[in-house]
């Protein structure tokens, strides 16, 4: 009996050894993301499939909700149990982690893949810290989009896309008269801030926008631009329905899909919802850049690679970075996610009409960064508060609100 027991124990130990050896061989990664909606999960799956094809082992720890995933990630980092990869935006949020020495650089992968040539210079600068590449960009989203329901436009007798804000408001009046909710408004602070930004860009132009957010410029021109933006924003209040407060962006998109509402201001991820509902861009719904806007606000997603101290994970991080920047993966991912590929050397023919418009603006350099790229999380929060307070406070005093705007940078 005793020998049997010994044999058994030895067997278990041996099996454990083999299992460990096997796991050691394969690059294993635990990836934490907040991509859980239909389109997002499908996009993440593109990366996963290619990663596994190249011999990696993929462990998914996705958490619904951007904030929830971030909170869980911070807790894991503080607890010393970082996941192998985390999806997050390119911007100052990542910079904090890098400056604390918590992320692994992926410089050699970037050098081998010639990322510097494949990516727009502004993006390459943003993913590098102290001359080393740290983040693997997955795709960019345009955030200056106004989507519209062709059916609703038809009902209201609107033949073509409005070119100026005056024409835009005239069309909203027509929609209202036709018994359609003119604007499907997502009444959450982050969504309202995106609308504020796209109007701001249309009022101050690319240079003016960068001056305000990157240089924190308080000159008269900047204040005037913010004031005009707030006036347009305030005017929009008259065109939303009573249920707008707190509405999710995808619920707002659903109002367009069912032709209950005319237009929605949103990032291009809204296309994912149209696609899931079987709607075609250009046929069932249209996409236009906000009126009078010469460019597009963009936000970029990436994968972050925390230090885990495990060799298998380090190997996997390099493999994953390679996979993410693969040209076919970039296109496939963009199609599923509704985004624009980061590489400028990919096959554009597969992209839909909206994405092509976005890619055009991007390669022309007519883009400005989202607030998350240039502002700290505290400042982003303060900006959300500012816009929300103006929007829901019902104040029409744009001039004095514009003066207060610059307090968000403090």
């Amino acid at each position, binding site marked *: 009996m005793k020998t049997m027991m010994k044999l058994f124990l030895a067997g278990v130990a041996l099996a454990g050894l083999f299992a460990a050896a096997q796991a050691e061989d394969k690059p294993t990664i635990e990836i934490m993301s907040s991509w859980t909606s239909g389109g997002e999960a499908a996009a993440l799956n593109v990366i996963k499939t290619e990663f596994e094809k190249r011999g990696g082992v993929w462990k998914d720890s996705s958490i619904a909700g951007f904030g929830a995933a971030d909170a869980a990630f911070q807790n894991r980092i503080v607890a010393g149990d970082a996941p192998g990869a985390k999806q997050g935006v390119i911007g100052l949020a990542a910079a904090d982690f890098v400056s604390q020495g918590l992320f692994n650089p992926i410089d050699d992968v970037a050098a081998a893949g010639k990322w510097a040539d494949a990516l727009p210079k502004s993006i390459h600068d943003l993913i590098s810290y102290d001359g080393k590449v740290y983040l693997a960009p997955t795709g960019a989203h345009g955030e200056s989009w106004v989507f519209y329901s062709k059916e609703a436009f038809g009902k209201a007798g609107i033949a073509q896309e409005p070119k100026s804000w005056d024409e835009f408001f005239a069309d909203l009046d027509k929609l209202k008269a036709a018994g359609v909710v003119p604007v499907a408004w997502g009444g959450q602070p982050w969504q309202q801030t995106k609308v504020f930004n796209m109007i701001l860009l249309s009022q101050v132009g690319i240079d003016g926008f960068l001056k305000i957010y990157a240089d924190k410029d308080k000159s008269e021109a900047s204040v005037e631009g913010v004031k005009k933006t707030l006036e347009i924003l305030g005017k929009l209040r008259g065109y939303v329905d009573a*249920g707008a407060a707190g509405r999710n962006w995808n619920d707002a998109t659903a109002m367009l899909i069912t032709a209950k509402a005319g237009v929605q201001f949103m990032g291009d991820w809204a296309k994912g919802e149209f696609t899931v509902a079987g709607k075609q861009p250009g046929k069932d719904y249209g996409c236009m850049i906000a009126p009078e806007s010469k460019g597009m606000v963009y936000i970029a997603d990436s994968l972050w690679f925390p230090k885990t101290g495990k060799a298998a994970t380090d190997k996997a991080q390099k493999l994953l970075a390679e996979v993410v920047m693969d040209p076919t993966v970039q296109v496939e991912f963009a199609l599923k996610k509704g985004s624009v590929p980061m590489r400028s050397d990919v096959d554009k023919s597969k992209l839909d009409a909206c994405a092509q418009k976005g890619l055009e603006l991007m390669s022309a350099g007519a883009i400005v960064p989202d607030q998350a790229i240039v502002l700290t999380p505290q400042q982003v929060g303060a900006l959300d508060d500012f816009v929300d*307070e103006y929007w829901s406070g019902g104040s029409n005093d744009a001039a004095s609100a514009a003066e207060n705007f610059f307090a968000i940078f403090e």
Partner: protein
Amino acid sequence: MSIKRKRNLSATIALLPTWFAAVVVFIGTMAWSIRLSFTNSTLFPSSTYVGFAQYSKLFASAKWLASLQNVLIFGVLYVAGCLVLGFLLAAALDRKIRFESAFRTIFLYPYAMSFVVTGLIWQWMLNPTLGIQASVRSLGWESFVLDWVVNRDMAIYALVLAGVWQGAGLVMVIALAGIRGIEAEQWKAARIDGIPVWRIYVSIILPQLGPALAAAGMLLAMGVIKTYDIVVAMTNGGPGNATEVPAKFIMDNLFGRQNLGLATAGATVLVLGVIIAVAPFRYAMHMRNQAKGAA
């Protein structure tokens, strides 16, 4: 004597883990948080001390001030509402009605639900395009308005409404148990004196329910400080700052805004607030007990 000491010793050993948890987990983390509130920590704890800078920033924030005011309004109305409604329900059930246990279950049921569920249900019901307003309008009353969750002035009362709906059942059960514990003789005596029923409840039953209602009130008040989930589910602090609460402010700054210093300053103020509110009460209790002991 030696047996007693031995017993004490084993009791002390048995209590050690609890002491350890209380000192390290409770007081330790509290001290840690308070320490952080004097630093300029953002995403990670830092040890650069900035004095009371986080506190002055905190009290310059309109959002924080609004959250304090909101939790006060919510707290007072929620606790009072639950106590009044709970007592009325208990008195009604006490009238030897038919299907009493069925009603009791129904009234207590909301309390078994999580605040997130309660919040979502009421959010839908009070949402003007989905809920009660939309259904009444579809029945023909076109001018009917019930838009509490999206109305800046009424949103906080929508929270109170949902909270009372959830919490009243608990008070009812505690009050009912108290009422049932009162001797039937008192009823008979009052009846003989020809005192009306409502007067019996107000002047005879209610005073005897004091301790039971105080316990229920205490339970509810503790819930008020932590109010977070119902706000997130119903209004997410909006419209504007109309339903922002301290717990949500702290969570937002802790995670979303990566502002550890400000969040811990808020938490410290909250703890201080609780201590200031509870201390006189505890002191009064202590004095009363001593007075009793002396008598």
